[in-house]
């Protein structure tokens, strides 16, 4: 598709429950990113993928968060045993970086989905 599709739009979980968020990147984009946006607009980088391989996971709280991007499937972000502090909007973005684009002066931009609002009660 031509836009990043995130599902569900809203998700409510009780503390301790599991939450799973999905992201379908733009077709042909090889990079996928997950961000967490909490109050006051602050974004926190969680993880990035290059195709199905983890590219950078330094932002992930690994004890409860996991993510995958498998071929022919939407990418997913899973939170085991949610906590109140996990309440946030989770954004997925995709990008098709090609070195030759940079040499041509083309932009390297990420396209964001509409986000999934997770509320932990």
């Amino acid at each position, binding site marked *: 598709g031509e836009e*990043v599709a995130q599902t569900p739009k809203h998700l409510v979980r009780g503390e301790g429950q599991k939450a799973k968020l999905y992201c379908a990147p733009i077709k042909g984009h090889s*990079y996928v*990113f997950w*961000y967490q946006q909490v109050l*006051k*607009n*602050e*974004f926190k*980088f969680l993880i*990035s993928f*290059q195709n199905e391989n983890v*590219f*950078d996971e*330094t*932002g992930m709280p690994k004890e409860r968060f996991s993510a995958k991007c498998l071929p022919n499937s939407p990418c997913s972000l899973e939170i085991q045993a949610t906590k109140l502090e996990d309440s946030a909007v989770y*954004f997925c*973005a995709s*990008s098709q*970086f090609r*070195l030759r684009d*940079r040499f041509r002066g083309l*932009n*390297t*931009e*990420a*396209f*964001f*989905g*509409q*986000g999934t609002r997770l509320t932990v009660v």
Partner: protein
Amino acid sequence: LAKTTQPISMDSYEGQEVNITCSHNNIATNDYITWYQQFPSQGPRFIIQGYKTKVTNEVASLFIPADRKSSTLSLPRVSLSDTAVYYCLVGGLPFTGGFKTIFGAGTRLFVKA
């Protein structure tokens, strides 16, 4: 990773030019400067990107001085629909070791009639 500092909020009137400046004192050689716009309940949307000097597209201009320690997003003749949060991002590219684009807190622009 380069940290960015922007004004928390700005007010303007329709038809005026708005300049939002972002400081990024420890920008790295491989870092690009990118600006995104975010409306409520939506994901950020790319506006403009640059490395040095001036970049202009159909919606904005980006001014980057020679030392690259700051950048200014210029929005000509804003309208009410430009009311949004504007983020300045500084980040490298995948082949340099990572594409961990870091968002700052953003600047909330409010355009009045």
